[in-house]
């Protein structure tokens, strides 16, 4: 078993929290993990990505080779597309539909969606909106993780435990908010994918 996941977004959007949940969950299942992340200049509002590799065997490269990612999970739709060369033939794209616009030449978001939909396996959800409804846009990343959970070969139990562990030094309210976000994302993704398979 080997799973390659690319997390993407804009510096400051919190993709490292998603990575930390994945890593912790994988280690708790006694799997090997490698997770390469971006520090430094790009964190100032630039494009950032994070490669997470999970396997039951030793992992060598910290970077995922092109064409080998099983999932690209993005907190921003244009940043999702930046990494599609990494996607394998049966790979999944999961993204927030909410664009983060901090450049003059940001494309029309409907064109972005069109481009994403060219890939057979995709989930586009308005995670930011969902997170706000739950109570805090900061949990957008957990909504997205929930949405992708069924694609990730880690048990839901270990993912939830990892979330609890990661936020253990915060208040109970924050923990339950994050868990709620996870379940909300999961539910909505299920509705979308059911719909897709019905067509």
């Amino acid at each position, binding site marked *: 078993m080997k799973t390659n996941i690319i997390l993407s977004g*804009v*510096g400051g959007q919190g993709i490292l929290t998603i990575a930390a949940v994945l*890593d*912790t969950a994988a*280690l*708790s299942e006694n799997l*090997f*993990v*490698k*997770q*390469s*992340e*971006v*520090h*430094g*200049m*790009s*964190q*100032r*509002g*630039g*494009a950032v990505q994070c*490669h997470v590799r999970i396997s039951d065997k030793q*992992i*060598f*490269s*910290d*970077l*995922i*080779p*092109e*064409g*080998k990612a099983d999932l690209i999970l993005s907190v921003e739709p*244009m*940043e999702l*597309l*930046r990494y*599609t*060369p990494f*996607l394998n033939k049966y790979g999944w794209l999961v993204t927030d539909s909410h664009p983060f616009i*901090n*450049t*003059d*030449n*940001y*494309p029309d978001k409907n*064109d*972005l969606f069109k*481009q994403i939909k060219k890939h057979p396996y995709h989930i586009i959800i308005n995670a930011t909106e969902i997170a706000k409804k739950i109570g805090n846009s900061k949990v957008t990343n957990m909504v997205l993780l929930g949405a992708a959970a069924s694609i990730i070969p880690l048990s839901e139990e270990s993912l939830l435990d990892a979330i609890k562990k990661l936020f253990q030094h915060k208040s109970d309210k924050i923990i339950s908010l994050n868990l709620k976000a996870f379940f909300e994302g999961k539910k909505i993704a299920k509705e979308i994918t059911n719909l897709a398979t019905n067509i």
Partner: protein
Amino acid sequence: MKSLLLGNEALAQGSIDAGLSGVYAYPGTPSTEITEYIQRSKLARELKIHATWSVNEKTAMESALGMSYTGLRALVVMKHVGLNVASDVFMNMSVSGINGGLVVVVADDPSMHSSQNEQDSRFYGKFAMIPILEPSNQQEAYDIMHYAFDLSEELKLPVLVRMVTRLSHSRAGIELRERRAQNVMQLPTDTSRFALLPMNARKQFDKLVNKKAILIKLSESSSLNDLKLSQHNDVGIIACGIAYNYVMENIGDDVSFYSILKISQYPLPKEKIKKLYKHCDKIIVVEEGYPLVEELLHDYFNKNDKIKGKLTGDIPLTGELNPNTVGKSLGIFQNISKSIPEIVSGRPPQLCEGCGHTDLFNTINELIPEIGNKNVFGDIGCYALGALPPLKTVNTLIDMGASITMAKGAADAGLENAIAVIGDSTFTHSGMTGLLDAVYENSPITVIISDNSAIAMTGAQESSAVGRLHKICLGIGVHPDHLKTMIPLNKNHEQNVELLRNELKYKGVSVIISERPCVRLSRDKKEEIKAKIASLS
């Protein structure tokens, strides 16, 4: 459960567990997390490991040498270009030798993710004639520190550990070892080797040169340099440091078809290389950085086309390695036909919303029509982003401190209205000496110290400049009438433009301190800084 650590953190924990007594460093991507980890470590605090930031890499390395002089184990950490700053002590302490174990960790940044060049620190290690260790993964980064300190004490030489961005900033599960006790103070038996007067230095240099044979012998027998010969003799691979991972990623289950020499310790084990060379029809050298090993191979075996690598174009000469470029060089099919969809536009980094640097640049930009658009000399820090659109204020960015001295040189040449923009911590790192040069000649330049009370670019570390800038400038000899302060806020725009216009008219050194804390600092941190400033004034 294993501990999940960044390569940098694994290395830091490895140092603590190897009996460290002090780490000295100036922040710089990709090396920063090593020192930060030790600063946060409870164990390190209990062990009273020194971990306060230094003013620059040179002072850091000299302090580490001082600690080593007393017999304790010291670590000094920097990014690759930081070693340029520290190169004076670096080159000389290999001649004097060390006492307590001294390890120099340098993190290179191939692909220049956060740097101005791709220099390869292995050349510095070779230049100083000391051992270089180059871990290939996080576990090795941890384990190698025990060995590095032991080796340093055994040889009485500093040891260079070379990291690269990708290893520094990638996490993996690490198994920890038992901790070695810290050294107790034991001053050198003979201090004359530390007094590098010519007669002592000559002796010491002879010793250093003669150690080379021992260093090579150690490399030959080191388990870090692992040679596996295959029954097939088509392809031999020399894989250095992290490059080994990219090789293994590609050959995976077919490993028995290749002969591989993994290199993680230098100087190179020549005998092992000869064995591999004799055994194989073709040798591919895979190394991160410059083609150092490849060049040496051409040297060993007279330049020939059996040796492949960066010089032959099989691997790109610039940029960091990745599994695809390495796979391609090994002749393994790479599935990389797809490209990024055209619709995707670039997203370069930019100053945070509400950053004081932006207001400062707006002030300067207001005067550009009067003074011309090529007069602003910049420096290293977040404000370097002022060179990019939409601001486009800053014209130069060369090294720490160069803003002031380049402005001075340009003014010497007759350029009017030369402006230097430098951050508070860059100023204390390498700007003060340049300012003295300018004061000494009263050069007609205007220096703006953009003081955000932090080393913001690398994650808001504490700046030693906090609360001291005015006194430093006055002490250096800036005339009190031309030492001004402004608050870079939009509401002060007109007033700030006027202030700058006036100082530009003055044909001597002016310093304007533009004061506003980085907006990323937490409220607590800002309070802390306020208290510190109050205590210093």
